[in-house]
């Protein structure tokens, strides 16, 4: 290949080929395919979630240039970002909206994987790593919510950390570590900040790499009926067909994000005051509403244990079962599959109703 200076593109390629196994990579990329069919639409949502995470990293770093993470300065610095910094309101709003959309698309991705039964052998670890990532995204949301140090976030954090404290044995020390003391105070803020900008991004990056690595190793899950009727099998090349479609969707999502951020900018509210009563109508972010609403319906006591503890116990059992779905439904028994799918629909309906009730009441 020419390395003449008139042809700089080729020169760079030749330089790289000389040092790295580019040809092998190109061959791998050429053979990578994605199933085509009525369910193909759902394959894009993991990528969209990843795109929104990249936006979060970008806007998050930008916000850190101005944000001051201490109880005395946090609220003022966020107000400064929103009011004084050129386009500060936009960057902050994009960060807030992108966080919400990211969690929304992660949920869509998870349920689509569930209903396509793509969690089955050999993809158990892909499923589990996905659940860990969803938990991390919720952690991002919870820790980020407090950072502007406003009244709503302050009380939502009090309630949220108190719920953690209800967990038997580890709950109390965990709550103490998270709060940086017995109560949510100025000591809590730097801890949440450290989790939000250092620990969670590091962990999430590791899990994203693992998740994608599993998918590269095993390929995208193909519909079950293709195994019985191989003549129905239809795929498209990942490069460029799927890749370009995914990029186009990213562009669409970016536009939706821009519209939301411009027309519904993130609000700031009132600065937190640890010595004022909780305002009426405090609510967590929408993705915690179902839990919040569910716990609200718990009576003060269920038998010997407190209602909250009982509610958390039920949620934990559900969560563990959700993690174990690949081992519960191995695709060997039709009845088990039907029950698991019905449970999935029930959970989806239950979460939707609880979220709606939590939002409207």
């Amino acid at each position: 290949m020419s390395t003449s200076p008139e042809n700089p593109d080729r020169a760079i390629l030749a330089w790289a080929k000389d040092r790295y196994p580019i040809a092998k990579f190109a061959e791998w990329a050429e053979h990578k395919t994605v199933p085509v069919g009525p369910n193909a639409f759902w394959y894009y949502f993991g990528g969209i979630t990843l795109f929104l995470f990249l936006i979060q990293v970008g806007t998050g770093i930008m916000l850190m240039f101005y944000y001051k993470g201490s109880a005395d300065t946090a609220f003022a610095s966020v107000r400064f970002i929103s009011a004084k910094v050129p386009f500060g309101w936009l960057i902050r709003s994009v960060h807030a909206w992108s966080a919400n959309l990211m969690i929304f698309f992660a949920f869509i991705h998870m349920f689509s994987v569930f209903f396509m039964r793509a969690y089955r052998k050999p993809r158990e670890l892909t499923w589990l790593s996905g659940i860990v990532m969803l938990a991390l995204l919720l952690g991002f949301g919870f820790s980020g919510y407090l950072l502007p140090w406003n009244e709503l976030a302050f009380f939502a954090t009090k309630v949220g950390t108190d719920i953690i404290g209800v967990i038997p044995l580890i709950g109390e020390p965990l709550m103490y570590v998270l709060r940086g003391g017995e109560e949510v105070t100025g000591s809590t803020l730097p801890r949440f900040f450290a989790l939000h900008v250092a620990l969670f991004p590091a962990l999430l990056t590791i899990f994203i790499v693992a998740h994608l690595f599993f998918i590269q190793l095993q390929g995208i899950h193909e519909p079950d009926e293709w195994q019985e009727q191989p003549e129905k099998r239809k795929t498209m090349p990942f490069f460029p067909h799927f890749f370009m479609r995914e990029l186009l969707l990213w562009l669409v999502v970016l536009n939706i994000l821009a519209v939301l951020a411009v027309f519904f900018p993130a609000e700031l509210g009132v600065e937190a005051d640890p010595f004022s009563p909780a305002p009426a109508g405090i609510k967590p972010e929408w993705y915690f509403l179902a839990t919040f609403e569910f716990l609200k319906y718990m009576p003060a006591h269920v038998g010997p244990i407190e209602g909250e503890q009982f509610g958390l116990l039920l949620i934990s059992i559900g969560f563990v079962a959700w993690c174990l779905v690949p081992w519960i439904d191995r695709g060997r028994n039709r009845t088990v599959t039907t029950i698991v799918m019905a449970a999935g629909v029930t959970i989806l309906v239950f979460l939707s109703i609880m979220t709606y009730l939590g939002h409207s009441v």
Partner: protein
Amino acid sequence: MLDRRRILNWLLGGSAFAWAGSVLHPVIRFLMPPPEQEAAVSAVKATTLTEMTPNSGKIFKFGRKPALIVRRSDGTFTAFMAKCTHLDCIVQYREDKERIWCACHDGFYDLNGTNVSGPPPRPLDALEVHMQGDDVYVTRKS
């Protein structure tokens, strides 16, 4: 019977375990903040007779924690720690219902601090009220 290899494995495993412990211990201890010295609060002046009209409530600082003093309709005072026993929110006095209310989950307490409706599982922690001339002092329950 214990052979040499097994003893060595135990020793190695034990040392590895001890080593991991000696690394983790300071890390975990570092993350647990040292307990702050609770300011020895004996009595706090919460309000004055003139400041609070009957059927009203006020949040005041009791040491480092919020507390609530309520002046009942009959003019007498009662005080509690303002932390809701449900999930830690700060309660407030509702004049329209003459009850103590937690806005977070719509929990109500009566003026004895007893949980009467909503999710709170226990009564509020009560404080003692002492009058000294025009001043209203609050102390821990003796």
